[in-house]
Each structure stands twice: as structure tokens, then as C-alpha cells.
């Protein structure tokens, strides 16, 4: 685990040194702040529902932004040849993957802490249901953690950053919209598609419900994507 933290620290430092991280933070905070302000100004009284709207908006923005943050994590190591250094040091493959994952998470989570200003503003000027806030944020964090894991997996598949970003975005869009298929198939099969959908699993959180089923869904998706990334690295050794 020490190695994973070393790698995470290095990733975080190179994020902070690159303009990409600031552009992403600025976009996320700027646009969600703008949406929040409009919602508040347009209604006579600030309410918890406004927060749900902004968080839903943030999740959809992250769907686009996360692949940009994760695209270089492994693909760049491959294209620059540093993967050879990393994989010949006494570091286990899963430590590399965890390190990369935690590094990206370490960048994104603090950005969300800044967005806690939205519920605080509502609390000041209206009535706020902190239970709703908690459920919304749990949904947001779980979804973004899943996005990062999927994006990291995409980055492990190629040595081209752009390809990694497009792949990551495609995987996420697939998981986002897969629930729609439920309208076209039998009820039983439709349920399967709904359970697989990121969007469907987020709905409960936005209503203030913390459902174990959805938590299990996200944790499984994260674990599976990270596991697939480790296998993808191992596969490089095996070819």
C-alpha cells in the first residue's frame, strides 16, 4: 500500500502542475455555480430541490470531464516508455493501479468539497434538509468514483491519450444510457438493463434515498473496473 500511496502522490503532484486539472476544476465549479445561481434567482425561496438539480448537473458534467482527467494515467506511461521503469520496480501491478486511482480521486474529491458552499448558501437563505444533501453527495461521490475507475481502465487499453479519452467516454455513456433499452425489451430483461444503468442507480440518491442496492452497484462497478485494469496491465506482461 505504501507503493500505491507513493504513486498516488506523484500523480496528484503532476495534476497540480498541469493546466488540465485547473481547466476541469474551473469548468465544473464555474458552470455548476452558474446553474445554481440561476436556480436560486428564479425561485422565491432557496430549497433543497435546487441542490439536487445542481448535483445532477455536476454528475453529467463529470461524465464528460473524468475521461479527460484519466486519459493519460496509464496511456502516457506507455507512450513515453516509463511503464517499463514502473513495471520493473518492486511494485505489484495492483499497487500501480490503486496508486493511479487514488491520485485521480485525490484531485477530484477536494473540488467537491468546494461545492459544499451550495448547501451552505441554501441553509443561510432558506430551509435545507441535510439528509437530502447527504444522499445527493453520496450518489455524486460514488458515481464519480465509478467514472474514474472506468476511465482508468480505458487508459490501460491504449498508448494514445485521445483514444483513451474517447474510449472512457464511450464506456461511461454506455453505462449511463443502458437503462433506456428497458423500454424495448421484455420486462424481465428490461430490469437487468435498468440495474446496470448508472443513471437509474443515481435516481434514488437524488430523491434522498440511500439504497443498499445502488451502493452495491457502484462498489461492484468500481471494483470490476479496477480489477480489469490490473488484468490489462498483467496482460501486457503476458504478450
Amino acid at each position, binding site marked *: 500500500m505504501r*507503493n500505491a500511496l507513493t504513486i498516488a502522490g506523484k500523480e496528484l503532484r*503532476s495534476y497540480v*502542475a498541469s493546466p488540465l486539472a485547473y481547466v476541469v476544476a474551473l469548468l465544473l465549479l464555474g458552470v455548476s455555480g452558474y446553474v445554481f445561481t440561476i436556480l436560486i434567482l428564479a425561485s422565491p425561496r432557496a430549497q433543497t430541490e435546487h441542490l439536487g438539480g445542481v448535483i445532477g448537473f455536476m454528475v453529467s458534467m463529470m461524465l464528460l470531464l473524468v475521461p479527460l482527467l484519466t486519459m493519460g494515467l496509464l496511456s502516457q506511461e506507455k507512450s513515453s516508455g516509463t511503464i*517499463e*521503469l514502473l513495471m*520493473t520496480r518492486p511494485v505489484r501491478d495492483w499497487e500501480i493501479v490503486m496508486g493511479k486511482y487514488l491520485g485521480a480521486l485525490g484531485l477530484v474529491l477536494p473540488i467537491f468539497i468546494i461545492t459544499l458552499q451550495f448547501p451552505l448558501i441554501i441553509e443561510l437563505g432558506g430551509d435545507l434538509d441535510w439528509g437530502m444533501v447527504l444522499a445527493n453527495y453520496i450518489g455524486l461521490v460514488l458515481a464519480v468514483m465509478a467514472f474514474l475507475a472506468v476511465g482508468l481502465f480505458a487508459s490501460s487499453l491504449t498508448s494514445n491519450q485521445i483514444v483513451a479519452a474517447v474510449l472512457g467516454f464511450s464506456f461511461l455513456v454506455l453505462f449511463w444510457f443502458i437503462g433506456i433499452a428497458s423500454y424495448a425489451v421484455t420486462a424481465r430483461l428490461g430490469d437487468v438493463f435498468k440495474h446496470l444503468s448508472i443513471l437509474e442507480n443515481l435516481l434514488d440518491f437524488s430523491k434522498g434515498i440511500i439504497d443498499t442496492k445502488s451502493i452495491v452497484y457502484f462498489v461492484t462497478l468500481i471494483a470490476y473496473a479496477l480489477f480489469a485494469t490490473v488484468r490489462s496491465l498483467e496482460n501486457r506482461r503476458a504478450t
Partner: protein
Amino acid sequence: MIQAEGLTKYYGPHLAIVDVSFEVATGEIVAFLGPNAAGKTTTMRILTGYLPATSGTAQVAGFDVAEQSLETRRSIGYMPEGPALYNDMRVRQYLRYCGRLNGMGRAELAERLEYVTDRCGLNGQVDSIIATLSSGYRQRVSLAQALLHNPPVLILDEPTIGLDPNQIIEVRDLIKSLGGDHTVLLSTHILPEAQMTCERVMIINNGQIVAVDRPEVLTAQIRQAETLMVRVQNDNETIPRLLQDISQITAVRPGEQARSYYIDTEVGSDLRAPIAEFIVGHGWGLLALRPVEMSLEDVFRELTTEEKGVG
């Protein structure tokens, strides 16, 4: 310290190395010499645990590279081809990162970092961003990285590529000084380099080791004849014919310079005195007479173009 037995590697249907077996003793400096795409990097990648062999086994520092990968990797300092550097990091940052990945403690790391930057001539560059360094310095940073955790085994893939002549000499001297304390396996396609830095040379071609020995022995074994170079003052056409009549001289060829000749004589013979006497006796004016050493370059060409095995 390094043992490879029957290493074979396929990339899909493409055969990269075939049945590569060799040993490197503790403290020895050995060069892998071969043209590009001969299988040098592939063999090194197998030893360092980056790639698995299709078949065959290898031990480094007593650990099996496939079964005890982490232990093997801990005992190896590896300088990959085309230095594996993070361009956005500073030299010190990069070396610290590598040190931590090698499991080094804070105090040990600080001490070794000072030592390797000094040893590799990086003192003035520790705070530079790697992207801004010249290729010579990049190469040194990569070498410093390999030395950092004081590993018993060093595997250096083309350590002097991209360096200017002065830097090449510095790096060669550095590598030479590492022998004894470290076991060094380096690869190169530059022949004098192997000759100058290494105690033993393994010549690899088309994925197969074609010769292994000390550089002098290799040149001696492949030598078909002793060759002398003579240069005379008063040239005339009869010289080659007259010389050829001396017993034990097998051939007389024109030399590279004007009025000079290469004289091939039988292996083990030394005809310097009789030839000198002969030339002086004919009044041709002897200007120069010296034995021509076969360089490793000739051996190499011989072995890799005609695929002729030695010993």
C-alpha cells in the same frame, strides 16, 4: 549472479530470441553486442521481469525471474533503452520517486541521492525539470536511477546512446568503476565500447548468441592470418611478387595508403625481421612495418554476416 537457460521469446508468431543461455559471474561486466533488433532488449526485459519468456528460465541474484519477480526486481537496477523519464518532474523529485518505489527509507534515500547525483555528474542539475535537460543529462539521470538503491545487478540497455564523445568516455569510465561491487550486463551495438568497458562480450544476432568470450580471445579465434602493414619509399610493381616468394607469406594486398601493402602470413608466425631485412636488402627504403590487429568490428562482421559460430 545472472543465469539464463534456454530463453526463448515469441511475439505472436515472430521469434525474438531462441534458446539464449549464458551466465554472468558476480562483479563481472559483460556486454551484449549485436545489431539492432538482434534480441538484446528482449533478453534484458525478460531478466528484469518486464516480459515473461515463452520458454526457458533465468535467475538473477539467486531469484527466479518468473517465480520471484519482486525479489528479482529489487536486486536489479535497470536503465531501459531511451531513458524512461517523467518529463514534468525535477531530477531530484524523479530520483526520490524511484527511491521510494524501490522501498528505500528517508535517510538512506537522502544519502544515496547525494552519492548517485555526484557519481553521475548531476550536481548542478538536481533542480532542473527533466524536459529541459539535454539528452546526455537525461541519460545520466536514467543511470543514476539504476544505481540509486545500490542493487547487486545492473542491467543497462544502450547506456551511451545519444551522448557526445566526451560524455561517452565519462559514462564508460563510470561503468568500468562499477565492476567488482556490481554485476553489470550492458547492451550496445558500438563495438569499441564493448571492447573497452567489458571483460566479456556476448555477440547476439538474429535472436541467438553466436559467440561468448573475452574480446581478445574472440579476435584471436576468428583470425585467419597474421597481418603486417609495410610502407616503402621507392615503390615498384615487382614488390608484391617478390614478397610473395618468401615462405610463410600467404598473400600481399595493396594497403590503404600510397606505397603500402598488407602482408598476410601464416597464423602464429612472426616475419617482421625477415621482411624488414628483405626490403632493406632490395633498397626499397622501409618506412613503416607494424602488425595489424583484427578489431572486434571485424569479428563482429564476420560472425553476424556469415553466421559463423566460434568456439
